[in-house]
């Protein structure tokens, strides 16, 4: 048996356990860290699918930046676990129903009749010089260049909107302007006064 299936099963077991832990563990910090582990093992599985660009970007963006900020916030908040568990039984039927619905939908969409090996065909094994990064770049910047640029513009708009919505001027807080600080010259600050020596009294 080759090593690939063994690796796949190791990674997918860790992924399933970590994903389950995200929603079941009591400590929110542990939940966030489980999510990090889930992202990381997911990236490992993507690597095995020869999608190294996506895998590395997943680690870079989600693990390296998004989850750091998540953890940051979770650690700062003093989350009241008892209160967040209130009404668990009351909301269980509705929540369970929605979960079941999503599960059925996913089975219908992602089931073997749409994504089975007969439909998609055996995935191609590429040679060692195959570059997933290059393939993605070529596809994004030729075939899908307009959707890609529009998505980029939308994201930029979202950034500007988020900053514009949350920014507020605080007239009471003091700011420094480093450009002005650097431009300061001696003459602005110090004045040397020449005066006659005073008589001793």
């Amino acid at each position, binding site marked *: 048996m080759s090593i690939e299936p063994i690796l796949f099963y190791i990674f997918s077991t860790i992924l399933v356990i970590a994903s389950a832990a995200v929603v079941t563990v009591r400590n929110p*910090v542990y939940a966030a*860290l489980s999510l990090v582990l889930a992202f990381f093992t997911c990236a490992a599985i993507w690597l095995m699918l020869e999608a190294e*660009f996506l895998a*590395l970007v997943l*680690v*870079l963006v989600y693990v*390296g930046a998004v989850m*750091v900020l998540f953890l*940051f916030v979770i650690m700062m908040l003093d989350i009241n676990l008892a209160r967040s568990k209130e009404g668990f039984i009351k909301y269980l039927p509705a929540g369970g129903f929605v979960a079941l619905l999503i599960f059925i939908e996913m089975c219908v969409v992602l089931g073997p009749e749409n994504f089975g090996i007969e439909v998609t065909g055996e995935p191609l094994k590429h040679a060692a010089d195959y570059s997933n*990064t290059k393939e993605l770049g070529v596809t994004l910047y030729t075939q899908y260049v307009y959707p890609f640029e529009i998505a980029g513009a939308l994201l930029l708009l979202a950034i500007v909107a988020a900053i514009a919505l949350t920014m507020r001027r605080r007239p009471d807080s003091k700011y420094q302007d480093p450009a002005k600080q650097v431009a300061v010259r001696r003459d602005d600050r110090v004045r040397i006064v020449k005066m006659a020596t005073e008589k001793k009294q």
Partner: protein
Amino acid sequence: MIELLLSIWNLVPEALQTLLIIILKIVVITVPIMLSVAYITLAERKVIGYIQVRIGPNRVGPRGLLQPIADGLKLVLKEIIIPTNANRFLFVIAPLLALAPALACWAVIPFADGWVLADIDAGLLYVLALSSMGVYGLIIAGWASNSKYAFLGAIRSAAQMVSYEIAMGFALVGVLMAAGSMNLSAIVESQSGSFIHWFWLPLFPLFLVYFIAGLAETNRAPFDVAEGESEIVAGFHVEYSGMAFALFFLAEYANMILISILTVIMFMGGWLSPFQGIPGLEDLFAFVPGIVWILGKTCFLLLLFLWFRATFPRYRYDQVMRLGWKVFIPITILWILVIGVGVMAEIGPWFD
């Protein structure tokens, strides 16, 4: 004897053979890194000592050369104290999370032509992704310690690392545009020619930004606000002692070497000889292997790290953030535009 060993080797199944060879390569890379980390601590104390007109450590062994061994031994023998109400599991695992990414990055570093453990296509991205993982060790350590100072240090370092990663990433985008590849060996190859073909010249602002952002990423002075011993005692590792503390120390110094060697690979021609293309001198120095050049350049940058620490006072926290967001990111974006124009116009000798 050799024949006997060879026949035993041939009995080993092929998959296991590859595995053993890879493990051997990892050992060959890791052990020198660990030794260099030990001796950089000595070099740091010596260099700063001489800068401050002192001698530095000179008691253990000849000229203090065994000092790192003594320090290491001391740390190994010390007790690891776990604070009350600390999260035991996370407290213990945090130093490992800090050290592992710092070492894992070395897998893609080419030391000379073809001397690389994993010659992967997206090497640059791999380095960026893994070095962004190092911050977890710091955050978890700060949180699990159950200490205000440690937590403040962790928050500071997390904010700082996330901010400087952006500038660093943009600097890498510039390198990848100029080189046309994310493979670190190919990046070095594309700087071949002469001293002025190296990317430090066409990418000079990015070179500076990358190196300074590297200082900030490794939490070194003048950006060591995460430790800031005069403000928050020692930041995220204030509660750590013994070997657990030593692992953080190892991670910091391993990261320093990593940033230096990456700067060398991306901006200073990697293993290429600085005398390349100069008639006379090129032949005179042709016998020097590439690894000497790359390690020599790396040592020079490491010296800069130590020099900075002895020279500059610590940044104030808000100014660290200002430098990252308001100075470095605009500079890098602007210079990426310049490189774009250069690549389109095929300006020689770098972009043709």
